[in-house]
């Protein structure tokens, strides 16, 4: 036992994880001491979630070694990790909403004999866990009827019920109110007092500094440093999280005319899905970048503007004329186009061809009385394939069989098939390789130079800074900063995004 206290509870030795060609985690070595709260911070895509999933057995490392209590382990499933006392509470809660609290807590670890549940035994176990955690939850309530904060408690009870001594929490407060967050901090400190180790991942730096004993900073899949939280501040963490990838060059931006009449004006747009009172002005030839953390409401705003999500307030003017946009169809009709966030989820119809995907919004232009003119469609698509340099065997190739970069170009082709006045681009280069990225940056710059007004939403800060004339920052659904590119720095963008602006300025 004396020895156990000295060996780290969980140790990673030179752990890497690749996804296709992308190295999400690169050679991370890290020791997490027993009975501590260990913070893990980094920008979007720094590799935090991947790393935590490696520890939780949800994904296996490409290389490297994992140790628990000084012994080498290799997990092939979350169940393996659980058997070593490691549980994860994911960003997306993994509960069965239609079942009771009790059923959820013991899902997969039911008390039973020969396939029959021993309900009284389960109740006893439940009461024991409630005593250990000090929670008060009705075991018979349906989980779906609980508030998010209570659902989270169910996940915590579940981890404790399985004797998890190591609990990973990935952004647990992202969807909680201030009061609920503070209750969660108490719970976490209570778990620590009982000897549980917590790996705590959060975008909210103040929260991490307040809770954690040690903090690890990651950037681009690399372990930057680990040290006592007492030695860190928001500023030092932000500085450590920054980092420039010099492989990419951004094309020169043409100046846009600041006095040109705006092509798009948005005033006070609010929507049910999490954005409030957002203003936006776009002039011809201007690229406006929109930065913020994942979940800050940027994509929701874009979809609201594009008529794909309900808005509750605000007005939209195109060329000075007020317009109503209630569906993407109307958005296209008003000269808007959108490159959506995710090719697979909301962008492309993977089972269909390049031609079908790219002409989808504008079929009326290649049809007569609803009957397609295949010849003119083909000509338009071939033109676009050449213009965007899509590497393909032809317009009939099924999109699923293209590389990520070429699929992304098909997404652009769809938006450009009829030259829009305003182009909204949500994550221009997600999941494409460096070469294709360069091509997409050049395309965006050329489009702006030709007079198109462009809104670029990106979680990659350097992308926003490299492309935009002006940068907006969103945080928790609201616009919190609007700065010209010549005054924008990574520090003040991140400070606005993380809500540490006050401390950075001071």
């Amino acid at each position, binding site marked *: 036992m004396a020895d156990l206290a000295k060996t780290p509870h969980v140790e990673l030795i030179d752990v890497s994880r690749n996804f296709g060609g992308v190295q999400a985690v690169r050679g991370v070595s890290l020791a997490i001491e027993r009975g501590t709260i260990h913070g893990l911070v980094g920008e979007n895509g720094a590799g935090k979630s991947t790393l935590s999933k490696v520890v939780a057995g949800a994904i296996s490392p490409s290389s490297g070694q994992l140790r628990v209590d000084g012994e080498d382990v290799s997990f092939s499933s979350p169940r393996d990790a659980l058997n070593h006392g490691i549980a994860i509470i994911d960003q997306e809660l993994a509960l069965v909403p239609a079942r009771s609290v009790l059923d959820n807590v013991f899902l997969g670890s039911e008390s039973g004999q020969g396939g029959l549940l021993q309900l009284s035994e389960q109740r006893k176990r439940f009461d024991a866990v409630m005593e250990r955690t000090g929670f008060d939850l009705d075991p018979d309530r349906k989980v779906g009827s609980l508030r998010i904060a209570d659902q989270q408690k169910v996940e915590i009870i579940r981890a404790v019920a399985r004797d998890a001594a190591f609990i990973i929490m990935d952004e647990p407060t992202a969807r909680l109110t201030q009061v609920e967050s503070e209750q969660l901090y108490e719970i976490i400190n209570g778990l620590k007092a009982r000897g549980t180790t917590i790996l705590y991942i959060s975008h909210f730096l103040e929260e991490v500094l307040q809770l954690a004993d040690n903090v690890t900073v990651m950037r681009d899949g690399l372990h930057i440093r680990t040290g006592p939280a007492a030695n860190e501040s928001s500023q030092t963490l932000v500085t450590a999280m920054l980092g420039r990838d010099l492989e990419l060059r951004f094309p020169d931006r043409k100046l846009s005319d600041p006095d040109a009449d705006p092509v798009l004006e948005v005033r006070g747009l609010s929507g049910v899905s999490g954005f409030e009172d957002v203003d936006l002005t776009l002039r011809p030839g201007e690229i406006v970048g929109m930065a913020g953390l994942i979940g800050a409401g940027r994509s929701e705003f874009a979809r609201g503007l594009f008529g794909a999500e309900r808005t509750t307030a605000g007005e939209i003017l195109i060329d000075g004329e007020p317009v109503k946009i209630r569906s*993407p*169809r109307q958005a296209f009709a008003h000269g808007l186009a*959108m490159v959506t966030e995710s090719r697979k989820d*909301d962008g492309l119809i993977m*089972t269909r061809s390049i031609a079908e995907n790219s*002409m*989808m919004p504008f079929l009326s232009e290649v049809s007569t009385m*609803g009957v397609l003119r295949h010849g003119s469609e083909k000509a338009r698509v071939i033109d676009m394939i050449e213009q965007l340099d899509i590497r393909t065997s032809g317009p009939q190739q099924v999109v699923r069989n293209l590389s990520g970069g070429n699929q992304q170009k098909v997404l652009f082709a769809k938006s450009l098939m009829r030259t829009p006045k305003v182009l909204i681009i949500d994550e221009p280069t997600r999941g494409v390789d460096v070469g294709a990225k360069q091509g997409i940056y050049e395309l965006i710059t050329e489009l702006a130079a030709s007079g198109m007004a462009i809104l670029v939403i990106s979680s990659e800060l350097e992308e926003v800074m490299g492309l935009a004339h002006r940068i907006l920052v969103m945080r928790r659904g609201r616009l919190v900063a609007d700065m010209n590119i010549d005054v924008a720095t990574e520090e003040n963008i991140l400070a606005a995004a993380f809500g540490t602006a006050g401390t950075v300025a001071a």
Partner: protein
Amino acid sequence: MRPDVLRDYGIVFFLIALFIAMSLASDVFLTSSNLRNIIDGAVPLGMLACAGTLVIIAGGFDLSAGAIFGVAAVVGAKICNSTGPEVALVAGVLTGAGLGLVNGILCTVGRINAFVGTLGTSIGYGGLAVALSGSGIVLISNESFGNLSATNLLGIKSSTIIFLVTAAICAFVLNRTVLGRHIFGTGGNPLAARLSGVPVNKTLAITYVISGAFAALAGMIVASRTLSVTGNTGTTIIFDALAAILIGGNSVLGGEGAIWRTMVGVLILSIISNGFNLLGIDPLYQQCVNGAIILVAVGADAWARRTTT
């Protein structure tokens, strides 16, 4: 490449093999009158299956087409008796389209799952058909109604021609029209389709209307053959139609598929049925064989997908 070809056209090879096997096993099989019988026997099944393919590709599912088939047969018979065959035909098809529209509304803006929604309407429409028929047989007094199926055009029955035209229309809609593109988009990725300006609810609803209209036409063709109808006409045919769609290799997940696949499925089921007949095998076993073929065809498709992607 080979597994791809096998995946895409495996079911065609099966049809060819079945055809050759039947030709060898029975002297009668490969006669022109038998082949014409096979096609003409497949008319109601084939019409339901072709129109149902549009629904499935759009991401829906129409369990109620069999019941609509029955309602339209009864409505057509009654109106034919009271007015005339032409009016009956139009009224029947409109009835089918209207009932299809109800399905379409329930399963889109009504947000009801397609299986549940059309199971519900299937039961409801089935009851309607029995009620309209007065729980008995409706005899069609105007014999000219029989011309709908029995007219001979260049040696082919009019019912067969209506079926082939139906298949051609469905294939044309899918491959050559804006609606067809919208159908594939709606079934393949409704979110992406909507963000591309496709009216996804309207598109899906239209496929239910088409399914209802052609089911109605099929119901009246069957009524015109015997000049008598009961409300229960068509209660089981929907399962054969769905079986034909799936055997042909159309994906139940939507977004993929083709009318030729459905036609292959229809032919396989019809040739098997014909084979039981010609070879004098107890038709009781036919259901078992059909069931086994569906499971093999759909299972093989799932496994092929697993290994290629």
